[in-house]
Every structure is written in C-alpha cells, then in structure tokens.
C-alpha cells in the first residue's frame, strides 16, 4: 500500500468515518453511546487493567497534544538534556503502564467466562489495535529516541499539513517502520471509534466533577 494512501488519504478517510459513524451511532442508538462497562461482572482485574491504562494513556495523549500545539516550547524544554531525559522517562513509564493495563484487559476479556459472553469481535479488535499502538510506541521510545523532540520537529509539520489540507509526506515516508506503524495504528483507532466501546471517549462524564454529593453504601464488604 502506498505511502501516499496511508499518510495523505487514509487520515481523511478515518476522520470522515469517525464523524459520520459517530453521528450515525448517536442518532441510532444513543443509550449504547458509552463504554458498556462490565464492572459489575468482574472488578478486580478491571481495576488493575483500567487504572494504569487510563492514567497512562491520558498523559501520553496530553504529551502528543502539547507537541502538536506547542512544538517550539517543547523543543525549548528539551534543549536541556536533564529535562529531555525526565520527559522521555516519564512517557516511557506511562507507556509501560499502558502496556500492562491493556494486557490485563485483554487477559480479562479472554479468560473470564462472564466477560467473554458479553464480548464481541470489535472488543478484541480494539484491544489488538491498542496493543500494536502501545508496543510500537514503546519500541519508538527505546530504539528511535528522542521522540518528544523529533515529533515536534518532524511530525508536527506533517500533522499540520493534514489540517490545512496540503498533506506533505516527504519526511514521514522516510521514517522507520515502527514510527509508520505507530501513526497508522493511531489513525485506524480514530476510524473505529464509532463502532466500539471507545465512543465513551466522546462523552466523558465531566459533570461528575461538580455533581452533588452522593453517599454510596455497599451491602457487602469486599
């Protein structure tokens, strides 16, 4: 498959699928526009999977967003070697936490009978893509260092070229396969969001932060 398709056309197709699919799903089945939590079926493995995964992915997403929005600030921050190492190490720790988290979630979905019953094939596709995304990201962080800096210098111009509808893929074409895989799996994840549990990403319970106080009493300790 040509680089032109993967890096200049596929991103737009993914965004189009994401937008049309999300609107369609929200209109057709609004009550399923959530993560379809199975916490009541199994909680312990979920806790050790979902907590490190969500904390890790949130920080990593924020890091990528900062590199995209403020590339010069990030390059300035990384100009001091100590700050560069701190940033890269933090990202690596969050990446490893994500990996363990997704692995736990995968294991839970495959091995727990009650969860397996309520799973569909898209659940496995999502977890598989997330695994590819995280492993390729860790690979990049370790073997193609220092990603935080060269993302700002090389990938931000590419992403910005997509936003202004003038995709410039010269630099991306020459990047190592691991980075290309990381980009393509990220774009694929965007495309499948409307058809999976990942739609909960679009409806975060923000009002949870300032909702009225509620007292929850469990009828069984544990």
């Amino acid at each position, binding site marked *: 498959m040509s680089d032109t398709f993967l890096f200049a*056309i596929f991103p737009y197709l993914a965004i189009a699928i994401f937008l049309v699919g999300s609107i369609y799903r929200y209109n057709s089945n609004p009550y399923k526009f959530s993560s379809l939590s199975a916490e009541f079926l199994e909680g312990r493995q979920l806790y050790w999977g979902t907590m490190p995964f969500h904390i890790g992915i949130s920080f990593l997403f924020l890091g990528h967003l900062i590199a995209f929005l403020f590339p010069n600030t990030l390059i300035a921050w990384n*100009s001091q070697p100590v700050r560069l190492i701190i940033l890269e190490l933090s990202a690596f720790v969050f990446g*490893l936490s994500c990996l363990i988290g997704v692995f736990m979630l995968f294991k839970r979905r495959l091995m727990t009978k009650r969860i397996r019953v309520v799973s569909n094939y898209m659940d496995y596709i999502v977890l598989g893509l997330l695994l590819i995304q995280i492993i390729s990201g860790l690979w990049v962080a370790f073997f193609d260092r220092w990603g935080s800096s060269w993302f700002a210098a090389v990938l931000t111009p590419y992403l910005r070229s997509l936003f202004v509808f003038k995709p410039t893929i010269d630099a991306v074409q020459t990047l190592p396969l691991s980075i290309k895989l990381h980009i393509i799996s990220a774009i694929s994840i965007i495309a499948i969001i409307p058809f999976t549990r990942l739609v909960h990403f679009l409806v975060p319970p923000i009002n949870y932060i300032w909702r009225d106080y509620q007292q929850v009493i469990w009828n069984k300790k544990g």
Partner: protein
Amino acid sequence: MRNCFQINPLKIAVIFITAFSTNAFPQNGEVLFKTKCASCHTLGDGELIGPDLSGVTQRHPEPWLMEFIRSSSTMIKKGDAAAVAIFEKYSKKEMPDPKIADNEITEVITYMKKFSGAGDVVNVSNSTSQSGTSAITENMKPVTSEPTITMNSQTINTGLMYFTGEKRFTLKGPSCVTCHHVRHDSVILGGALAKNLDRITERYNEKALLNLIANPPFPAMSVAYQDKKITEEEAVSLVAFLKKSTENYAFQRPADKQFRFLYTGLAGMLLFFLLIPLVWSNKKKS
C-alpha cells in the same frame, strides 16, 4: 436530517486521491534541485559529496538519468557499468533515492540541461524563481570553496553546546542530539532517528558536512530546519566539534545509557503500580 450524513465513501476516496496525490503538486526543477540535490551536487561549482552535474545531460542519455535519479542503488545492484563507476569513484556512497515522482525528475533534468558545461553555467542564486518559490530557495547557496574551520577550544565547545542543545541555534531549530548520537563523554545518549555521527569526518570532508548542515538532503532534517536554518557560523562550530570528536573517538568512554534508560523506566513503572492503590484506594476492586 439523517440523509445529510449519507456520504458515498467511493466518491470521497476519489476526491481525496485526486486532490492529495503527490503528483498533483509538481514542483519546478530549480526548487527541486535546490531542495533535493544541492547539498551534494553543484552545477558548475565543482564536486561536493557527489559529482558536479553541469553537462550531465550530455554525458548520459535522459532515460538513463531518469532511472539513476529514481533509484541509483537499483542500477548499481543490476551492475550498470556507468552507475557502478560513479559509485566506485565517490567513495562507494550510494545516493539516497529522492522519492519524487517521474514528472518531477523530468523537471530536474530539464533544469540541469541549462547547465551544459562550464561555459554555459547560469548563476543559480540569481536565476529567476517562479512565484512562491523564493522562500524555499533562500539561504541555499552551496558551500563550494574550501571552508576554514578554526579548531580552537572556544569554537569546539560552542559546537558541543549547539550539538547538545545547551546553546540554542539562532533560529531556534532543534538541537542535533534530538536525532543524532555521537560518541563523546560530554554528550548524553543521542537520538537514534538519524545517522550515528561517530567518526563522521572520516566519511565526509568539511565542505560536504557544511553543505549537509546548510542544505539537508534528508527529508526529515529538511522539514525540521525549514524556516529555522542553521547559520554558517553555527555550522562551522558544529563541524569543528564533530572533527574533534572524530579525532578523540578512541579516548571517549561514555557510559552505556541505553539500558539504564530501560531499567529506570521499569523501576518507574513498578513505583507507579504501587502508587495506584494508595491514590485511588476508595475505588471498588471487586
């Protein structure tokens, strides 16, 4: 209302393929030459890393040039006599594939035809650019004379600071350590995206290095320093530092920081897992 969202994916694909194919944006030969070729070749100003290309269209037929520019390594592998001879003559350094479309290669060849030999050389820097190309061609005059690199400690230290990022480039481009590693006791573990610069001055002379820094032919480096060109003075101090690091290569004993990074990361992850139940102790686990 829902009909608004009924979009034919095939139509979208056709629109995007037509609009965003790289062939839809051909660049003119001069700009292409200056962005893709000028760091290694001149047109009448002598050899850099590769041959002087004035008169090249008379030395080789156009189909041969097309094929060579498209992928010189393929021709060398096939055993093309002329390609192999060039490869042997220029220190067995393969020319990287420029990754441009055939119509763009034709434009470059058409542009090179203007430089049929020493007597017909057009002044590249003064030649008229098409509208919209002036910004791209600025500051791209190749270094053709033998540069003077002052090897004093101040220049070398300045080069070291530019390399690590301790001193920012005038136009705030990223430091070299972002993508390159060089074996030096005072340099942290360098980036691994681009070439390792150990003993680089044994492979490239000073003139070639200055050209590579001033007009990077590598697309990623070219994008990274677009609008953030490294000045001549900065490039000279970088080359001085690289030359010194080549000379001192055998005496440098930097610690192996690659695996230290991995171990620290794993330790950090364990700490992170210990912190989760402490911070979120109220969350129900079963």
